[in-house]
């Protein structure tokens, strides 16, 4: 497939506006303005574009809700808080193709009637911060940002807001709290951010990759876009593959491609010809799949049927040398650390699960611990304030479902053999 999101990134100066324009950049902004807001909206609707952050919410629907709200100003926020462990798909856009994102955001701002945009960038990407700041300055200079964009009176201002190491700020209401200078704790929904978001105004929060799809969508039109990838979730998708594969990295492939093909066709198979044990298909919060269950279509609709989720498209490949109890324990250390403390099931549940997993991994597991893990995770599931707690519980439940024997072995032999 021809690359779009990763087009031109092998050019060492790809983040420079001159190179971006030379490769056809910012033409789609002019085209979108020529079409008018309603026609662009219709193309997005036809395209079937879904949000790439993890939830897969239809973009056109989110935008319609925000457009329908009569309050102004409206805000557009790009979620660049790429914190889901295993995920590094947005980093090449942020560091190598920042003008693609900026063009996508100006188009979005124009369609939505939003005159102010923010890129909420995770604190762990200091290089991206400098690159984005420089790219934004270039875009202002060339009149792609400011009060009179393209000389057509379009106003859109953009700046970077840097996070400070809180995974929960990837959740959109926590992100908004964080932009407002507060602790990043999720808000009660409804009201949804499209009506009451940043500074209580209608706010659209979209992922880096989602917004970066806008120029392509304008270039080829909604109908052609809808023909890429799977029918229910069209478009190109960035998959970031890590762990035990020959060629880890970020791959731009059609949505709906088989997980097996990603690993064996595109990433060169398992490293050193080892035997595959398991794959976490969409970042650490998505349920693990055992080696015999990876012939599944990677999209938002098919993956739940296969027992997991697409998440952020972060594929973590593990060979037979990996201890699944240890992976579960490490995952729960992460969730405990990142739980914002707002709701009891998550705050207490992640701590409790981590403690049980720690003792099992360290050879101090007790009879009944597996049942206790299932019980605690089962009580958490569906009862936490935001998806962080569900993710933590789901990870434990899936690991026990597929690798119960490893948990039993740790408890019975009082050690980890790995």
């Amino acid at each position, binding site marked *: 497939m021809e690359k779009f999101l990763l087009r031109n990134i092998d050019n060492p100066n790809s983040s420079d506006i001159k190179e971006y324009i030379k490769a056809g950049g910012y033409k789609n902004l002019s085209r979108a303005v020529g079409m008018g807001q309603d026609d662009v909206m219709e193309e997005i609707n036809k395209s079937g574009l879904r949000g790439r952050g993890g939830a897969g919410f239809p973009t056109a629907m989110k935008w319609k809700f925000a457009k329908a709200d009569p309050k102004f100003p409206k805000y557009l926020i790009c979620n660049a808080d*790429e*914190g*889901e*462990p*295993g*995920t*590094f798909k947005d*980093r090449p856009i942020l560091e190598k193709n920042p003008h693609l994102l900026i063009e996508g955001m100006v188009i979005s701002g124009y369609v939505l009637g939003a005159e102010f945009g923010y890129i909420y960038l*995770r*604190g*762990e*990407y*200091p*290089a991206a911060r400098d690159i984005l700041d420089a790219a934004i300055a270039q875009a202002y200079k060339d009149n792609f940002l400011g009060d009179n964009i393209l000389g057509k009176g379009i106003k859109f*201002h953009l*700046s970077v*807001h*840097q*996070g*400070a*190491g*809180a*995974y929960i700020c990837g959740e959109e209401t926590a992100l908004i709290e*964080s*932009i*407002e*200078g*507060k*602790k*990043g704790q999720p808000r009660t929904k409804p009201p949804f951010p499209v009506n009451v978001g940043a*500074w209580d105004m209608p706010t659209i929060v979209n992922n880096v990759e989602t917004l970066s799809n806008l120029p392509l969508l304008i270039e080829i039109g909604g109908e052609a876009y809808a023909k890429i990838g799977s029918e229910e979730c069209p478009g190109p998708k960035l998959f*970031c*593959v*890590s*762990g*035990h594969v020959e060629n*880890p*990295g*970020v791959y731009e492939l059609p949505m709906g491609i088989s997980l097996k093909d990603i690993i064996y066709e595109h990433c060169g198979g398992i490293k050193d010809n080892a035997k595959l044990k398991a794959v*976490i298909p969409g970042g*650490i919060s998505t349920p693990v799949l055992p080696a015999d269950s990876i012939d599944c279509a990677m999209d938002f609709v098919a993956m739940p049927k296969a027992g997991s989720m697409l998440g952020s498209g*972060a594929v*973590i490949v*593990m060979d037979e040398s*990996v201890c699944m109890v*240890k*992976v579960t324990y*490490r*995952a729960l250390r*992460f969730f405990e*650390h*990142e739980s*914002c403390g707002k709701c009891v099931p998550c705050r207490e549940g992640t701590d409790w699960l981590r403690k049980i997993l720690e003792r099992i991994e360290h050879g101090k597991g007790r009879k009944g611990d597996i049942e206790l893990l299932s019980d605690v995770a089962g009580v958490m599931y569906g009862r936490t304030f935001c998806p962080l707690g569900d993710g933590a519980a789901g990870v434990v439940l899936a690991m026990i479902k597929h690798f119960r024997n490893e948990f039993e072995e740790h408890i019975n032999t009082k050690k980890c053999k790995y």
Partner: protein
Amino acid sequence: MFNEAVIKEIDEIRVKYPDRKSALLPALYIAQREFGWLSNEAMSCVSETLNLPEAFVRGTASFYSMFRHKEVGRHLIQLCTNVSCMILGAERLIDFLNTKYGIQKNGTSEDGRFSLVEMECIGACGTAPAMLVDTDFYEDLTEENIVGILEQYK
């Protein structure tokens, strides 16, 4: 109190937001840069400059793991040990740094040269294990190459 140049820098950030509270995270980053860490004095300066209650400033500052609440060494090593890095040997690197430089996890070496923070995913999973030293990314780390990298930081 901050010097005039810093106050001007914060004022320039304030205009990007509709209210002054929203400039708190950027202002805390600036305070951390100026003081090396968020001491009581640093947070008081932020509170005064943005005219926000100290309790609010401390509440926010304590929530985020990249704001530091104790003094750190001259160079900050932020090494990821989350799953993708862990299965490719990140924990061995933590042990190695302890043996070689005497840095404990989340501690500082005796000579004040390095502090080590264990990170939760820094987005370099395809080139794991990985770390940030100050603001520089280093990837595909081994016990052999990590020594050469750290030699550049005196």
